[in-house]
């Protein structure tokens, strides 16, 4: 802990030394304080999304079954607008990117541009078995899963995920519900150990 790590290339040795000798305690406290403030700010921003979220959908080579279910979210039966969620055609207005399909490599530029056009903080949701890497593996034509190209925040399984599953996933994404699949075992009658 006391040993000064060898100076990184580009980092002046004087700066590394001063941080090692006099600034250690206060630096750690300062870093913790900044971390805490950042956490609070993040939480405040995330809370803004809870009842006002704009969604941009991105089809990266899906069979359109997922799109069909996503379209149904706006129908009166599911009515996602009552939750404060809206679809937007412009990634620059979007808070959440709903990605479907196995990310075909032909979409590389479009995926990157869409993600970069979104203002931060942004949420990425992988939707459907293709986007989760369940159907197609990485090969010459597809990346196989969304997390190969984008940082994913929420995964929604299903082929296609029903509008109810999508609604649940969106509420998990904004922190209004907790994901429960982690506790499900998919096994009954005493697992042998």
């Amino acid at each position, binding site marked *: 802990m006391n040993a000064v790590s060898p100076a990184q290339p580009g980092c002046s040795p004087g700066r590394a030394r001063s941080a090692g000798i006099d600034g250690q305690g206060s630096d750690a406290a300062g870093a913790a304080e900044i971390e805490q403030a950042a956490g609070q700010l993040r939480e405040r921003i995330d809370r803004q999304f809870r009842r006002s979220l704009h969604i941009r959908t991105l089809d990266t080579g899906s069979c359109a079954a997922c799109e069909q279910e996503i379209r149904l979210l706006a129908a009166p039966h599911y009515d996602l607008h009552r939750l404060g969620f809206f679809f937007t055609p412009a990634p620059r207005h979007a808070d959440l990117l709903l990605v479907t399909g196995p990310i075909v490599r032909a979409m590389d530029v479009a995926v990157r541009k869409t993600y970069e056009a979104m203002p931060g903080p942004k949420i990425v949701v992988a939707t459907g078995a293709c986007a989760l890497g369940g159907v197609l593996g990485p090969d010459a034509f597809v990346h196989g899963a969304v997390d190969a190209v984008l940082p994913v925040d929420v995964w929604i399984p299903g082929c296609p995920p029903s509008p109810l*599953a999508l609604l649940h996933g969106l509420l998990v994404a904004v922190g209004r519900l907790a994901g429960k699949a982690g506790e*499900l075992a998919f096994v*009954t009658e005493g*697992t042998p150990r």
Partner: protein
Amino acid sequence: MPAWFLRGLRRGVVTTRYPDRPDPSAADLPTPPRFRAGQLTAGVAGRLVEVCPSRALWREDDVLVFDAGACTGCGRCERAAPEAVTASGEFELAVTARDHLIKRIPLPRQPRP
């Protein structure tokens, strides 16, 4: 006059929580399988892995690994081994970590006679 209109006037809120009540259409949804551990032998597991069209089931020695994220809910495993596999009825499976969807199911070491 609809009851929700008066309720809305009284409370100032006309929308409902999610889910307000179980959706009747949820019973018909294709859902990932649920395995009966007692019926699951190495032979049955091998058959299930063979029949799975997506990359949702595979074997790791004495463990059957089930990836609920990769499952398409096609029901082929339920038809291949109805005694060991049933529909789970779970469809709200969104998670914040991909690993939460991968389930490891230990198999008995000795095949049953």
